[in-house]
Structure formats: structure tokens, C-alpha cells
């Protein structure tokens, strides 16, 4: 909300500069977001426009009066109300207008006055200048007066052209069967039964507390004006304003709570100003329907609660002084507590904690000491996950992959192509109110994001691009429940970059190099069971012969491989590799406790085994078989070479394994090892139809 310094000074005395005031208000919770000098009409009369950010709980500060009350409480300055024309006791007005409230819960109070002989014209310059400084467009003197008084008091007023109200029987009611109303901005609004309306007889003339209707708007020929000053239920006003997307000065204030006791002063102030600037003659008397009288409930404030919550002992004298400065009435006292009644304009004060905040605020947060609490370790159990996440990141960084952070939104098209690890039984999560047509769903996989990153960087002339993303993916299960899991995905395009002199033959990573990264991840996370690598179930976006699904105990935990060549061709990309792993699943297999093995006491002996097998033979089968043997003297077996070409016949390949033999209790002799090795070699040849190469 904006106000000008000179205007504020009409409500409260204070010494000091605009900067000083800005600081005082900011440190009391009314944040002054900007203050700028206002070009003055007269030399030497400096004025400032101050913009304050009023928090939603402080509806009372949406009027200068409220800000002035704060200044008075903070500085001790004298508060005063600008002059008004109080309504004389008279029933004069009752002959002209009748008001009935059919929904007293939604409209606890409705006050109105009538002025006659209005000459509608432009408002005087001083009024226009102030309105404009506060961001309100000048319309005409009548509407400007209602806005001027609203800025002063926080009480929204509405001016009806009384001659355009045929029945002059004002009815405040819910819309019910009334379906539409054209508001004064010319828009026809569709109503719902719960909307609160101001009606003239049966005809709606205003959307209560939100916007007036166009039919009863003040116009250049208006003579008689009915001024409305009412109090409406905040939630009701908010529902209507939000549904119709109308954010008016009035609804903004009603949503945040307006002083129910302030309706009559605002009317009197407006009557005075209308007489001044529009030549109006107020009709004697006022209509004031106040069926649900607001009675602020007393609040008990215990001294010990103040010190417990703030961490500082404040003398009783001080706290009571603060409360009374804020307009609270002390109703009673005991040795340890005080009971106060908050003022009608502070509907946000209902609880002891609210009063303690007021005490802290006026004491100044800077005057509350700072201390470090005793931290008592909770019994929540240590969480291993953050440490594992950091290990994973550190490993991938070391492998040359750079971390990406992507928004989780994607298109239905991308989700159809890249389903990640969800299988067939999950569907994507759709956004009800997406930011764009290409961002209508939450991602099923991290790959689309990485593809975007690849494109962005290739457009910037990157020669290669190796990256990973470690983030959540989302899906709905068959019952429509949302699921989310943490995944890690990588993309490796082009040769890994090097610093320094260029190497001659830089080549992009192969499938086996990416598989190496995945094995590294398993190693870093300390995953117990060995993964199985399978060609079946590979996604259609991957190369059918250069990709694998990774299984742990028959559960798909990830995949890797080259992107389908058609995709690359269409996108004008070189072939490249991707992988994606279900981190949540991997974490389940990660051990909590490692036990170190002692070093062996006797030396190992290594023997190589070379076999010629069919080209399609998976090398891992021989390793698997040998491990499953569980032979006490076979310590380990590894593939170390694969060879095709002369002298190996067409359709065949040669595989070379190294087997390490060791006994726990002695040094093995050559003949012992040779004998065992020959036995194993013979078994391999027999079982796998392999031909031994010597």
C-alpha cells in the first residue's frame, strides 16, 4: 500500500525524516519497500511517497489511519482523526432508503448515508495528486472521494447513483437463483449461489465487497448518491473474488479484515469531503444495520509465557505499556498475568501468542538477545542416504560427467517415448494448470531433460557433452496414487574432453565404457548382489543390440545403451550412450556395515584359458559357471580379451580368461595348479562346446 508523508502527518505527529520513518516501520513489521520524493507543487514543501508491503494479517494497515496508529504506538506521537461530518440523529434517511440484511453472517454490518445535490465533476488537483501517488486512477469527484476515504481509513466505500435504484430497498443476500451481474468494468459475471450480492429490491446492483454493478454506477448526471460502508465476511469475499479473478482495492481489504467499528466514521468523512468537493448536501441521519456486533474476546497473557517464548524477561510495566499503546484495554490483572481486550481493528489478535508477537515487535527484535540452544540428539537413527548420494555424485564427477538440474515438466509426447523404469502399469502425472503445452506432465524419466541439455550445449558449439541428473521422476499407479522416486541418469555424447595437447584418436565412449561407469556406481554404493545384464525388455528408444537392462535379483533397476540410430539420424546427432538407474532400489541393496578381510598369507598362481566359441556366446557364462563351482582353490576368474578374425574361423570368436588359484593354508605347487587348470579347461570345452586354444 502507498501513502504520502504529508497525508500521514494529518493523522499523527512525528519528527524525523522519511528515511527514519521507513526504518522504524520496517523494523516493526511494516516493510517499507520504497520511498521516493514527490515533485512538490510549492517550493520547499517536500513530500514523499512511501510504499509498504502489508502482510496478509494486517488488514488494519491498508489505510493510513492504521499506519498512523502504528507510528503513534512506536514513537509516542499524538494520533488524531481528520474532521468528519457525523450523521445527525434523524430518521430522515429512512424515508428515502431501506436496508435489509438476509445473510447477517456474511454481512454483520451495513451502514449507509445519502447525499443530494451532487455536481459530478473532476476532483480537485490536491486530491488527484494523492490518489495518483497511491496508484489509484482519478475518475470523478464522487468516486475519488470514496477511494480517498478508503485510503485514509481502510474502509471500502461504494457510491450508488440513488436515482438509478428504482425501489431503493437495499437487500444484502446470497445470489441463490440470480445468475449474472454486469460489473462496472462492463464484464458480465456468472454468479454461483454462494456469492454475496447487494440488490435493489430483486435486482442485483453490486457484487458485495468486490465490485459495483454498471447499472447503478455514478455518472456525469448523477444528483443523489447512496454511500455504502459495510462489513463483509473475509472468506466469502475471497471465494468470489478468487473465482472471478477480480482483485479490487475493496476485495483486497475485505479479505484481510476491515474494522467493523469504522463504518460510520468513514461515512462521515466522505460526507464532509463530498460537501467540499462536489457541493453535496448530506441527508440527515444514517442507516446502520449492525446485527452481529463484533465483541473482541479477552486474551490472558501470562508473564512466564512471554519469557519462555521470547527468551528474555521483560518487566510487566513494559509489556502493559506496549499493549495499551497498541489500543488494548486492560480488563484485569493477577500476580502473574494480565487480561486485555484487543481493539476492534485488530482482528488478527486472538491468542496469547499474538500478543507476545506484538510485545516482541514493539520491543524490537534487535533487543531480544541471541543465544545457542542445547541440541539434544534425537533418536531418529542415522541416515546413510545423504552420504551415499554424495559418493555417487563424486564418482560421476570423477568420470567426467557434469551435473544438470532440470525442471520436472515435460510433454506427453516425451513421456510416451521415454518411459524410464516404470513399466506398463504406471501412467504420467498431468499438471492441471501447466505453464505451456510442452510442459503438461511430470517426467517419467530423466532422459528427456538430458536431451534438452545436449541440444542446448551443442547449439553453443560444445564438441562433446557428458552429463548426469540425479533427481525425482513421477508416475501414477493403477489406483491413481502418485509415486515418486529418486533416479540417476547419464548421457555421454562425443569423446570425453581432455585438457592440454590434443590426443590423436579421441573416440566416444563405447557401450563397455558406459557399463564400466555403472559397475563403478555399484562398487561405490557397495551393492552386494551382482547385477544381471539382459538384452530382453530393452526400451524401443535404444539400439536393439547395443543396450541392456540391468537386473538385481530379478528386478529391473536400470538400463544403459546406445540411443536408437533412427532417433539420432532424425535429430542430426552422432550416436551416443545413455543410462538410467533407480537409486531408491539400489539403496535397498547397499550394505550398512563393511567387514574387512585379512590379507592372504600364501601367494596366488594365475593361469590363462583361451577358448574359441560361437560369436553369439556370452562371455559372462563361463565366469558365472566357475563362480558357481565354489571351488576352494579358485579365487577368481575374469575375461581379459575377445578376438575375432584370422586365424579364428568366420562366425566364431576367441575369448581369453585368467583364473587365479590360491590356497588359504599353503603355497600351491605348479603341478597341483596345472592339473586343476586342465580339469577345468576340459570341463569348459565339454559344457560350452568350446574349443581350447593352447
Amino acid at each position, binding site marked *: 500500500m502507498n501513502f504520502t508523508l504529508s497525508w500521514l502527518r494529518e493523522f499523527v505527529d512525528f519528527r524525523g525524516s522519511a528515511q527514519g520513518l521507513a526504518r522504524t516501520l520496517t523494523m516493526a513489521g511494516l516493510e517499507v519497500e520504497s520511498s521516493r520524493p514527490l515533485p512538490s507543487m510549492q517550493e520547499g514543501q517536500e513530500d514523499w511517497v512511501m510504499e509498504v508491503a502489508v502482510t496478509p494479517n494486517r488488514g488494519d494497515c491498508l489505510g493510513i489511519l492504521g499506519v498512523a496508529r502504528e507510528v503513534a504506538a512506536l514513537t509516542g506521537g499524538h494520533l488524531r482523526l481528520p474532521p468528519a461530518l457525523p450523521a445527525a440523529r434523524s430518521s430522515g434517511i429512512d424515508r428515502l432508503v431501506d436496508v435489509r440484511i438476509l445473510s447477517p453472517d456474511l454481512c454483520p454490518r451495513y451502514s449507509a448515508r445519502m447525499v443530494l445535490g451532487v455536481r459530478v465533476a473532476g476532483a480537485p488537483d490536491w486530491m488527484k495528486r494523492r490518489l495518483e501517488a497511491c496508484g489509484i486512477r482519478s475518475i470523478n469527484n464522487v468516486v475519488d472521494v470514496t477511494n480517498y476515504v478508503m485510503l485514509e481509513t481502510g474502509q471500502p466505500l461504494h457510491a450508488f447513483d440513488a436515482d438509478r435504484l428504482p425501489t431503493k430497498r437495499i437487500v444484502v443476500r446470497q445470489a441463490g437463483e440470480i445468475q449474472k451481474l454486469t460489473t462496472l468494468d462492463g464484464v458480465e459475471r456468472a454468479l454461483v449461489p454462494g456469492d454475496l450480492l447487494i440488490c435493489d429490491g430483486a435486482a442485483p446492483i453490486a457484487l458485495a465487497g468486490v465490485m459495483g454493478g454498471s447499472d447503478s454506477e455514478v455518472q456525469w448526471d448523477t444528483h443523489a448518491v447512496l454511500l455504502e460502508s459495510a462489513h463483509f465476511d473475509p472468506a466469502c469475499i475471497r471465494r468470489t473474488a478468487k473465482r472471478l479473478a477480480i482483485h479490487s482495492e475493496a476485495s483486497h481489504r475485505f479479505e484481510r479484515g476491515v474494522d467493523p467499528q469504522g463504518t460510520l466514521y468513514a461515512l462521515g468523512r466522505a460526507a464532509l469531503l463530498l460537501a467540499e468537493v462536489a457541493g453535496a448536501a448530506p441527508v440527515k441521519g444514517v442507516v446502520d444495520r449492525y446485527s452481529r456486533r463484533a465483541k473482541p474476546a479477552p486474551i490472558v497473557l501470562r508473564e512466564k509465557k512471554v519469557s519462555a517464548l521470547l527468551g528474555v524477561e521483560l518487566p510487566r510495566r513494559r509489556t502493559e505499556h506496549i499493549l495499551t499503546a497498541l489500543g488494548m484495554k486492560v480488563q484485569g490483572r493477577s500476580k502473574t498475568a494480565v487480561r486485555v481486550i484487543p481493539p476492534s481493528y485488530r482482528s488478527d489478535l486472538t491468542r496469547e501468542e499474538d500478543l507476545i508477537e506484538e510485545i516482541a515487535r514493539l520491543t524490537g527484535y534487535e533487543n531480544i538477545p541471541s543465544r545457542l540452544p542445547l541440541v539434544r*540428539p534425537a533418536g531418529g537413527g542415522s541416515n546413510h542416504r*545423504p552420504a551415499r548420494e554424495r559418493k555417487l555424485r563424486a564418482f560421476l564427477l570423477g568420470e567426467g560427467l557434469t551435473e544438470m538440474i532440470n525442471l520436472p515438466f515435460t510433454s506427453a509426447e516425451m513421456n510416451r517415448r521415454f518411459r524410464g523404469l516404470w513399466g506398463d502399469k504406471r501412467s504420467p502425472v498431468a499438471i492441471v494448470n501447466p505453464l505451456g503445452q510442452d510442459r503438461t506432465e511430470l517426467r517419467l524419466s530423466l532422459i528427456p531433460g538430458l536431451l534438452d541439455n545436449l541440444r*542446448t550445449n551443442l547449439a553453443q558449439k560444445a564438441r562433446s557433452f557428458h552429463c548426469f541428473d540425479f533427481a525425482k521422476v513421477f508416475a501414477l499407479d493403477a489406483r491413481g496414487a502418485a509415486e515418486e522416486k529418486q533416479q540417476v541418469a547419464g548421457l555421454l555424447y562425443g569423446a570425453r*574432453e581432455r*585438457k592440454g595437447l590434443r590426443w590423436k584418436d579421441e573416440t566416444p565412449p563405447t557401450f563397455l565404457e558406459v557399463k564400466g561407469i555403472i559397475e563403478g556406481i555399484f562398487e561405490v554404493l557397495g551393492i552386494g548382489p551382482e547385477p544381471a545384464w539382459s538384452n530382453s525388455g530393452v526400451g524401443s528408444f535404444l539400439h536393439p543390440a547395443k543396450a541392456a537392462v540391468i537386473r538385481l535379483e530379478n528386478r529391473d533397476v536400470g538400463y544403459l545403451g546406445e540411443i536408437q540410430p533412427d532417433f539420432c539420424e532424425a535429430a542430426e546427432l552422432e550416436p551416443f550412450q545413455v543410462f538410467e538407474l533407480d537409486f531408491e532400489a539400489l539403496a535397498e541393496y547397499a550394505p550398512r556395515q563393511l567387514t574387512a578381510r585379512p590379507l592372504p598369507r600364501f601367494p596366488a598362481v594365475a593361469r590363462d584359458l583361451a577358448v574359441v566359441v560361437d560369436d553369439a556366446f556370452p562371455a559372462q557364462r563361463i565366469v558365472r559357471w566357475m563362480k558357481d563351482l565354489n571351488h576352494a582353490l579358485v579365487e577368481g576368474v575374469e575375461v581379459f580379451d575377445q578376438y575375432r578374425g584370422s586365424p579364428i574361423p568366420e562366425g566364431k570368436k576367441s575369448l581369453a580368461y585368467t583364473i587365479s588359484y590360491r590356497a588359504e593354508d599353503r603355497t600351491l605347487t605348479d603341478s597341483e595348479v596345472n592339473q586343476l587348470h586342465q580339469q577345468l579347461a576340459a570341463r569348459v570345452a565339454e559344457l560350452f562346446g568350446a574349443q581350447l586354444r593352447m
Partner: protein
Amino acid sequence: MRESLDTLRNEFLARIVDGASEQEVQRLRVEFLGRKGKLTLMFHRLKEVPPEERPGLGEALNELRGFVEGKLELRLTELKRREKERLLQAERVDITLPGSRWERGRVHPLTLVMDEITDVFVAMGFELARGPDIEDDYHNFEALNMPPDHPARDMQDTFFVSAARVLRTHTSPVQIRVMETRKPPLQVIAPGAVYRHDDDATHSPMFHQVEGFMVDSQIAFSDLKGVLTHFLRRVFRPETGVRFRPSFFPFTEPSAEVDIQCFLCDGKGMVQGQQACRVCKGTGWLEILGAGMIDPEVFRFVGYDAERVSGFAFGMGVERIAMLKYGIEDIRLFFQNELRFLRQFA
């Protein structure tokens, strides 16, 4: 004979000059010490000397031979040393060529900052917690004292995935989830992604927050001040000025906005005398955290007795802290993921 000894010594010394090559040294050895060498011949001639002079002369001869051998040896060692030196010099590398190594991957600056933030709190004894990104209305709003039709909901434009489920607008629901399942004492830090229906140079539809809270039997506002002041001085500079000012959040009472002194203008609001500082827009302060004492309504929702426990909570935007720390002006840089940007961070 004695005179010829001195002549021989002088001759040898004149020949074994510094520049002598290995060949010359070998030639000298033959010429002086060989079977027909000059010194060898002198030994032969000893027989011709009167017997009483022989011992003295013999001694002098031996001394001269030792001297010649020593000199020759010294020269050879020196020559070998020089040859080795020459060979090593031939292996000289150009030490000004660039170092050769693989390009490292880079951690995203937001991860960097998030880790830095959580580390400070973990060192103070806080534990880490997380919650779902897809939240229900209850945890995201209602249990945080934001009933339907509350104007505070306007502060957060929300993405909906269904009528009752949203992308969490803040990390505060983690507070509720932890308190629902655990009893105090609690000191928890919860980093994560949050979502708002907003997209421009200073707002991203996704950004990151770190939420923290502490609940125990005697936690006061002064503890909140102590913990957050310590935190801010660890993450920024140790002498950073910190100020707390009243604010409003539905789930805390009293509530505070926490500012740090602007590091560009040192809190003066002006740079170079006159110009308003562009980082703090002339205020001298930077808004960095929202905080407060947990509202008793929140305790009621999770079944805690507000008469027995109290606590504080705080939340901060990771992007904002990263932007201030590194002088980044456009939030979208974080999510464009250009190597040109990411490689600026260690």
C-alpha cells in the same frame, strides 16, 4: 733426477687442462703411467741412482704417481658427470605446455550451495529429512495453518496435479510429516525442490528451499536468533551483519524476516558515494530467510501440546543465496545447464 721430477710434474699439470677430453685423459695415462710411460721409465732409472738417494727419490716418485693417478681419475669422473648431465638435458620438456588431464565433471552450483547450507546445520546436530514433491493440500497448506480461503495462500501460486494434490509450494510440509511421526526433541533440516506457478528472470517454476526446525521443551525466539546468526556468518562472511525484523507467516508466531548486510556496498546502500547499490536496491540489507516460532495451531495439527513444547522454524531459498553469493542475476541460468556457466564453479 729430482729436477726432472719437477719438470715432469709441471709438464703433466700443463697437459691436464680443464678442457681435456676423455681421449686425451687416456692418452695422458699411457704417456705417463703406461709400460713405456714417462713416470714408469723414471722408476726404471732408479737403479741408476746412488743407493743412499734411492729411498728419498722413490718416495718422491710414488708421491708423483699418486698425484697423477688422482688427477686423471678426478678428470674422468668429472667427464662422466658432464656426459650424464648432457644426456639429461637432452630430455628437457617444455614446462610451459598445458597440463594434460581429463576434463572434470562439475557439480551444479545449486548442489554446492545446498550442501554448504546443510553441512552447517548438520555440524550443529541437525538431522536430514525429506518429503514428497507431490503433496496433499493438508500437509502443504491446512496443517500449516492455511485453511482454504486464507489470503496467505495468495503468497504462493500453486501447480495442481488434482483437486486435492499439489506440487509442494514450500518445504514446510516436511515439518508436519516429521512431527506427525516423531516426538521432540527434534532438530531437522529438509532441503528440496519446490514449485510455484511463476516464470521470469527472478522466478522459476521450480526452485529449491532448505527448511529447518527445532522443537524441544524450552526453545525461545532468542535460540532462533542464535542459530540463524551462526548459520549466516558461516555461509557468508564471519563479520556479516544480521538483522531480524517482524513479518508474517501463517505457521509461525512471532514471525521474522532475516536480512544480512549487503556485501557489495557493506550495508551503506550506496556504491561510489552516490549511486544506489544495485544488489540491495539502496537498502543496505538483503532478505535471506523467513523464520519464526512454530505457531500453536501447527502443534495442534500434529498433536503436540503447545504448553509443553515450543520450537522455531525457518526456510530459505537456495537459488537466492546462490545468486547473492556468486553475483548471478538471472535465475534461469541455473536450469539452462550450459557448460559455459556450470564450468565457472569449482
